[in-house]
């Protein structure tokens, strides 16, 4: 329960940063999707638990509330990214550093493609596709860059709540 609380608190903080602080920063054309990194955290650190998938779905749903009009698009794409990162985590050993960043980057790419897929299903593909082509890789790279810090933050938060 405390683990869920830690991820939820991190999700709220990430959402506040993404909806309030990052857009206010000047000269920042793209900003890292911290919610994606949290889904990655679930995929990497909780890849044996079914709760991770539900967590990723809920994080996506949470993101859907504050992004776009299509309910389920972010939920679908973040769950897809979670699956991709879980598969990688099962075959690679990673705690921090470059493998972690690479996994988040791959997750970001999968998430972007999944979003295009959902958009195609509801006939608004062009706009999402253009965004993915223009910013998809950069956003994934930005998320990968901040991933170690986010992982460290969640670990610290868990320790604060008395978990591990």
């Amino acid at each position, binding site marked *: 329960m405390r683990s869920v609380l830690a991820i939820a608190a991190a999700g709220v903080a990430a959402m506040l940063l993404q909806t309030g602080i990052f857009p206010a*920063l*000047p000269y920042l054309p793209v900003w890292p999707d911290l919610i994606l990194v949290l889904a990655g955290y679930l995929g990497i650190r909780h890849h044996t638990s079914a709760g991770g998938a539900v967590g990723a779905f809920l994080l996506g*749903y949470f993101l859907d509330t504050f992004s776009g009009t299509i309910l389920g*698009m972010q939920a679908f794409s973040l769950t897809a990214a979670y699956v991709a990162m879980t598969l990688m985590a099962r075959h690679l050993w990673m705690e921090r550093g470059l493998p972690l960043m690479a996994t988040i980057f791959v997750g970001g790419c999968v998430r972007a493609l999944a979003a295009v897929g959902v958009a195609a299903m509801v006939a608004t593909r062009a706009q999402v596709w253009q965004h993915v082509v223009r910013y998809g890789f950069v956003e994934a790279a930005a998320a990968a860059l901040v991933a170690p810090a986010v992982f460290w933050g969640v670990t610290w938060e868990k320790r604060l709540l008395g978990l591990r």
Partner: protein
Amino acid sequence: MDFIRRNRVFLTSAACLLLAAGLALRTGRQQTRADRLGRFFLELMAPLQRSTAAVDRAIVSAWRSVVELVGARNENVVLRIRVQQLEQEVDRRSELDIENARLRGLLDFRRTLQGDILTARIIGRDATGMARTLVIDRGEADGVVKGAAAFAPEGVVGQIFLASRHAARILLVSDHNSGVDALVERTRARGIVQGTVDSGCGLKYVKRTEDVQVGDTVVTSGLDGIFPKGLPIGRVVSVDKRGQGLFQSAEVAPRVDFDRLEEVLVARGSFTLLEEAPAAPEQ
């Protein structure tokens, strides 16, 4: 059952994916959303977002302050440069006004003269304090010849004593080697104006019987063939009748301030004054 347990993560993921796809398909074409969970999230985040908005405003405000500060600094630099430029421009214009007035004076004076007169700019002064000479920017190429008269609206300046192709030197009337035949304007007493050591002039060889008083104006006599009759030289500041000789002498203050002189007129050949009177005020 074992299959489900082994693949629970992927089965849950698949279920979530299906659910999300279903949600997307169901709401994708709708203009509005009415999901309860979304409304809950929105409601949950609202107070937090309100607080974040204050931080957001603070960040934007701080950033704007920085940008404005940098802008003001740059603007300050630009304005400083502009002020410098304008000050230089004002100085230049002021200088031009003064020069303009001076040249207009020269031009007015030239109208009182009959003859071939040339305007020359002073480009140098004597290299030592032992003599009083000037260098002008006109030479033989402009018709300036050795012995030509140099004068200003205020009066006599001197005489060309050396001329090259594009420059010439003037021996000032205040130099001790100079000599100009002169008259005391009031009494027509004759004498020779020569330079003295202390940068003034002396009127010499005036008969002791002649009436010379302090304040008298001394003008050229026109007898030396260089200066026309009636060109002012200076004013008597003291008279010396000491001694037993035939002559008296007087100290004369030149009308022309040679230290401030910037242009002179040089005669090319003989010339005359159309009116025999001091044409311009003292400098």
